[in-house]
């Protein structure tokens, strides 16, 4: 699996703990751009990014519209926006209709990244209580990216990884511990 430069992580209910654990495990010189698409409520916007910032050795920010994606950074999709990944490796924010009852929609970010970044992206679906991300992960597989889903047995809420595994057909079904190892050893296999 060479060439991966971008890591996408999609999570919803029950994913916060594992997201912080994953961020915590990334070293200071981590060469990937990490993009987090997490469902959250509007009112916890501020504290949420701060909480992740404390845990991470990498700079954590909410990207602005048309901002360039840079390696070694963690980006969190701002609450109430959809985030597209453009072929010129920039972000695009949108306030279109909600998709799968959510904004941000994991599907939108994953599908646009699949198309724009092809085999340079690894995407992970974590615990969650809806089907968001399933179609996105399918597109990741379709365009040659690396697709990973949390083992439903290991997830706090199994619905989202279950749907993602079923729809995308990915074989990379891993526990949270294994996901960390998997991401740290990307490009080494």
């Amino acid at each position, binding site marked *: 699996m060479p060439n991966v430069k971008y890591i996408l992580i999609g999570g919803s209910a029950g994913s916060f703990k594992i997201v912080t654990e994953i961020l915590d495990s990334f070293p200071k010189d981590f060469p990937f751009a990490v993009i987090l698409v997490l469902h959250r409520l*509007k009112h916890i916007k501020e504290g949420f990014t701060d909480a992740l910032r404390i845990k991470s050795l990498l700079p954590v920010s909410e990207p602005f*519209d*048309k901002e360039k994606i840079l390696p070694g950074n963690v980006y969190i999709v701002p*609450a109430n926006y959809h985030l597209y990944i453009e072929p010129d490796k920039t972000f695009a*924010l949108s*306030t*279109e209709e909600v998709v799968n009852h959510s904004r941000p929609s994991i599907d939108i970010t994953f599908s646009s990244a699949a198309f724009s970044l092809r085999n340079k992206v690894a995407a992970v679906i974590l615990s969650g209580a809806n089907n968001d991300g399933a179609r996105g992960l399918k597109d990741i597989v379709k365009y040659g990216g690396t697709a990973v889903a949390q083992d439903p047995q290991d997830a706090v809420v199994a619905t989202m990884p279950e749907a993602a595994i079923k729809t995308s057909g990915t074989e990379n079904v891993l526990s949270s511990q294994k996901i960390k190892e998997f991401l740290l050893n990307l490009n080494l296999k």
Partner: protein
Amino acid sequence: MSNNLIVKILSAVFFLLSLFLIREIFISSYNEIPENDILLKYGILLLAVLFLFLSAFFRQTKTIYKEEKKSKNIKINNENEQQELTKSKTEEKIKNIISLTENKNNDSISEKILQAFAKEFHIVQGIVYQKEKEKFKISATYALYGNKNDYTFREGQGIPGQTAKNQKIKILTDIPEDYIQVVSGLGASSPKNVVFIPVTSNNQTISIIEIALFDDFPDDFEKYYHELNKELAKNINNAQSN
């Protein structure tokens, strides 16, 4: 708080005491004291009781009034501090916007203006229009992905056109429901404000900045608008000649 309690207890004690005295006088009056004397004693006693009640009442209202005044003063102080804080904040934000848009070319200046506003004012969405010949055209958008349109207007047409004509900041607080719907896990909500900011040069409007915000637009923005307008116009004119 404890003062109030003491006053209440004291007045209750005085009340009971005076009731007891009235009863004593009433009983004794039938036996030996002449009529005039009884009236006198009653009168003095009633006056004393009234006085006690009144003094207790005034003391109580005085303490309440003092406490209220105290908290009011604290509140006023806080408000003043807050105003000082936001005042300098707005000025700083405007300075940042000016410096963020310096030395750009014509392709990037409009984008930079929106990015600068996004950074300083947490905008939800934004559009920059630039005047080309007689029409204003969209030259940059913020967070309008998938809503691309080729909306144009002349001076005087619609709200942005009116802003271009009046050369004054226009703040819309009554946002039409279909302007934009932002939906969170908590339910749908529209932005609180849409603000139109004209940029003028030689008495001509050269650009309109339209931004939608969730937060209140700072009250003191207009105070710094003159400076912002002057510098933004300079930056836009420079960009166009670059």
